[in-house]
């Protein structure tokens, strides 16, 4: 049976315009595709990834326009569709003034105190 991997993602908006995604969220998709048993927790600034209404479009340098800007909220939602449990730390949402109603579908709210329980049910814990 595959090891249960808990990925806690905290670094946010690192090279997302250059990559047109978040590289760790991307890696989670690729690992899931390769059969990994994943749970993802978004904490710290990464909680903003699950807010509705993000729009990173419009980047242009001279005549070179970016036509596929990052849509990280969609990328996170698609992880959930692929069977990955995706949690967001509700305390970190509250500290940033983000209401639970602003959170996209498919993502579960997790109190900060609940992270430790996920540790206990995971074989590997990665902090990104």
């Amino acid at each position, binding site marked *: 049976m595959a090891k249960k991997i808990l990925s806690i993602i905290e670094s946010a908006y690192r090279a997302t315009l250059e990559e047109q995604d978040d*590289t760790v969220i991307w890696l989670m998709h*690729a690992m899931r595709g390769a059969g990994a048993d994943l749970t993802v927790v978004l904490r710290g600034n990464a909680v903003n990834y699950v807010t509705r209404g993000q729009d990173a479009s419009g980047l242009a340098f001279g005549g070179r326009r970016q036509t596929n800007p990052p849509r990280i909220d969609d990328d996170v939602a698609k992880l959930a569709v692929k069977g990955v449990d995706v949690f967001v730390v509700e305390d970190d949402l509250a500290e940033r003034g983000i209401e639970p109603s602003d959170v996209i579908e498919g993502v579960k709210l997790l109190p900060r105190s609940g992270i430790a329980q996920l540790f206990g049910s995971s074989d590997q814990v*990665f902090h990104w």
Partner: protein
Amino acid sequence: MAEKKTLTFALMDAPYENARTTTALRLIDAALRRGFNVNVFAYEGAIGIPSAKQAPHPNAVHGRDVIQEDHPNPKEWVAALIKEAEKLGGKLDWVQCGLCVDERGIGEWITGPRRGSPADFVKFIEDSDNTLVIPTK
């Protein structure tokens, strides 16, 4: 004799950026010396660590020419770790994320590392006794 245990490291930082790269290589060195086989999944900027075109330079501020400066590039550290693993009867399996290589145009690296994908990382995790992720910040 007991079978060697295996540790996997995921690295993300480019060389010459911060101390995490050197710390990661020191951890790999310690693991090899203690009898572990080691896997490395080099992701994002970390694929530059064993880049073949790294070159030493003189350092006028230090008042030394290139020979005197004797500046070890990270690729030499990786090569030395691979050699050390072989000497100790172990193995350092270093996988370079292929898409990260393509994005950066850094397709030439020293002998030893190989091109791979996140699927190799998943296999490393499954086959290892433990995995340490050292992400960029």
